[in-house]
């Protein structure tokens, strides 16, 4: 396997190319993400952070440049199911039980029924909802649904997890709890995470590097090394944490005032 989980080189994405409503969502972006890193993409709306994530996921075709995931072209990586993905909306299927939702990617990959069932149970334990397998998604709270969505994205053991504002719709308390859960899972599974957010505190708390993006056209304006070491309950009150929050905030401010 390649050293880099993600390698983005001179990538651009123009929507509605050649039309009057042409948008340069991502413009000439370079970004390398190492295996095992936790990287957040942050920036004002319209800065192309979600588009960049979708380019890495090969859900959107780049207009120019090249993207490699685990050393393969992004599209091949998608076809080989190299990554798992989670969205702001949990996006669970109401017509499947919680377990069957987690099993969905495994069904697509042709796992046997018993393998799927035991894997789903393992994942339920990982996200600390072991007794909810037979429930319907609508019976769970928003935070629980999001945990199931994370379990689903990790079910087939992808080495890369792509997350698009997964905690954006949650209340503050649930959100902090979910951040701790995600860090624990990240620690336990050696997964590389690329995480889109618009919360500065969330970016600083979660990541080893924060990628600050600027809009019109979407570009990377700064990459900030966080370097807070292992997080625990005291981290959120640590002066070092606040210092990093200020650094990111100022980087974002200079982006806004451009």
């Amino acid at each position, binding site marked *: 396997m390649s050293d880099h989980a993600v390698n983005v080189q001179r990538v651009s994405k123009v929507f509605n190319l050649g039309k009057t409503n042409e948008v340069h969502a991502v413009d000439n972006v370079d970004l390398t993400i190492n295996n095992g890193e936790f990287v957040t993409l942050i920036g004002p709306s319209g800065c192309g952070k979600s588009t960049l994530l*979708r380019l890495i*996921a090969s*859900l959107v075709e780049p207009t120019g440049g090249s993207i490699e995931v685990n050393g393969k072209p992004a599209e091949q990586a*998608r*076809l*080989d*199911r190299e*990554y*798992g*993905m989670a*969205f*702001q*909306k949990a*996006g669970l*299927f*109401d*017509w*499947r039980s919680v377990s069957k939702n987690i099993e*969905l*990617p495994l069904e*697509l*990959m042709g796992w046997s029924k018993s393998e799927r069932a035991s894997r789903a149970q393992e994942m339920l334990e990982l996200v600390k909802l072991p007794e*909810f397998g037979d*429930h*319907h998604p*609508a*019976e*769970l*709270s928003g*935070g*629980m649904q999001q945990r199931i969505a994370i379990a689903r994205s990790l079910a087939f053991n992808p080495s890369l997890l*792509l997350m698009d504002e997964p905690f954006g719709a949650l209340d503050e308390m*649930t959100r902090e709890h979910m951040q701790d859960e995600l860090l624990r899972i990240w620690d336990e599974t050696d997964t590389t995470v690329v995480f889109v957010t618009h919360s500065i505190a969330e970016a600083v708390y979660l990541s080893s590097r924060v990628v600050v993006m600027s809009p019109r056209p979407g570009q990377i304006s700064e990459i900030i090394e966080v370097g807070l070491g292992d997080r625990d309950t005291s981290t959120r009150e640590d002066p070092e944490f606040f210092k990093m929050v200020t650094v990111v905030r100022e980087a974002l401010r200079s982006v806004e005032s451009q």
Partner: protein
Amino acid sequence: MTAVPSAAVTSAPATKARLARWSAPIIAGVTILVVWEASLALLNPAGFVLPPPSAIISAIFENFSEVWMAARVTGFIIVTGLIAGAIVGVVTALLVTRYRLASEILTPLAVSLSAVPIIALAPIFNAWFGLLSPRSNQMIVVILVFFPIFINTAKGLTQVEPSQIELMESYAASKWRITREVRVPNALPFFFTALKVSTSLAVIAAIVAEYFGGRQDALGPLITQSAGLTRYDEAWAAVLAGTLIGAALYMITEILERVAMPWHVSIRGNDPAAN
């Protein structure tokens, strides 16, 4: 944060609620029949205005074999037309939402077909299929049922949460697999709503089409002939038979809906445990 299984807690109130749900329409129905019967006895209008419920019910028993036979003939047309129309509607919706070319050809065709006053075609269809053939009446039902099923199912197949499609694409799922796993389950509530509307449409379409032709031992001719002979209680008895067919089909649709999508919020009800 916690979700509690609700079945055990709510069984007693649930029985009570079910009782309340059934008793309300029964009480309302009985009240209407009593008021109807009583006001006719008081006002005593000429028989052609409106016969009392008792006369209609006794007309059903007196002419049972005739009404039963007519209901079977018309019922067959309704059920076969409904099933065929639903199948054509669903298949067209699947093609249109899956293939761009199919959409460009079929959608305008289907929409212009819906603008045609279809019942008005009955005399023309009689000329095509033969005046006494039930085929023309069936065709009227099929065409009438097709449109609401097609439009609603197509809407349900396309109106899907975008991130659910992206999720399936991230798993490199095929288009067909996305249709099966996401679009079809998403379209079920839309389909069943359309099917419920279609049951009453099918009854109306079949009986009105029968006024113009088709088998002469069906409900439509029974109504026109009885009314022509001033046997209004018998005409009403035939109307009641049509109503019962419509009500039965509606109930069967509801049962099918429950079997097909037990997960849906309209079936499960809003679970108070979710927050």
